[in-house]
């Protein structure tokens, strides 16, 4: 690639990735705010669930997927019951590695 093409590559990538992020600046945020104000937390919950489902899209009925799901359930329970983020992630990772090691 020539230097010109490299600069073009970075610029296209930069504009392409920033245009969607800066889009909310263009819309009337007050109006959107009014629409979203009642359901903001619920929307956050829905978006988080969607992201999680998107991440799990490649799961199949196989042992590793089951291990990931069960480790994730344990992570969820620790965070939900005790509110300890790092501990929940470490516990999930430990169970994952331990189970993969046994396999």
């Amino acid at each position, binding site marked *: 690639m020539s230097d010109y093409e490299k600069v073009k590559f970075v610029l296209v*990538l930069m504009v*392409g990735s920033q245009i969607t992020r800066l889009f909310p600046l263009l819309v009337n945020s007050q109006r959107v705010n009014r629409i979203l104000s009642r359901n903001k937390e619920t929307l956050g919950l829905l978006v988080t669930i969607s992201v999680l489902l998107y991440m799990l899209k490649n799961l199949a009925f196989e042992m590793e997927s089951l291990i990931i799901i069960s480790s994730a359930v344990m*992570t969820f329970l620790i965070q939900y019951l005790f509110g300890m983020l790092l501990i929940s992630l470490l516990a999930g990772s430990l169970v994952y590695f331990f189970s993969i090691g046994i396999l």
Partner: protein
Amino acid sequence: MSLGFKEIFIKSAPIALSYLILGGAFGAIFASKGGTPIEAFFISLSCYAGAAQFLAIEFYKADFSAWLLFASVCIINLRHIIYGLNLISYFPRGIVRIYLLSSLTDESFGISGLYDKEKLTKKNWMLIFGLNHFYWVFGCVLGSILNSQSDSFNRYANVLLVFFFTSVLANIIRTKRTA
């Protein structure tokens, strides 16, 4: 209420781990395609988009289609519009808001769910998003310098992200219950 650096740093630790691994994987693959650490630095600093950056590697060759790259990146990043609309009212006004929007990623959106967003100050927002940005840039540059690929590392980074979002989900439900 202003949060301290220590609290924000501890909460950002899972992001640091996954970003260093994923960013490292991007840097390594990018370097194997002929990219330099300086290019990896500028791409990760200005684009800061995980999936889009991995996709862009396929276009990193002479005579690439700029329009196709642009359209593909826009489509992949469409979800950022929802994230932005959801968070924009919490962001402080001015140049800080532009930075926060331009550095909005899945993980930054997720980690904001761990805080009481109404109470975050301008400094807190900058620290939360700035730390994540730093981890990503550092991981990408480090990966392009070390140039070593590891599938198991990459796989663990993705699993860790699943655990992270599970924790975020649990935290949102927990907060809703106690509110």
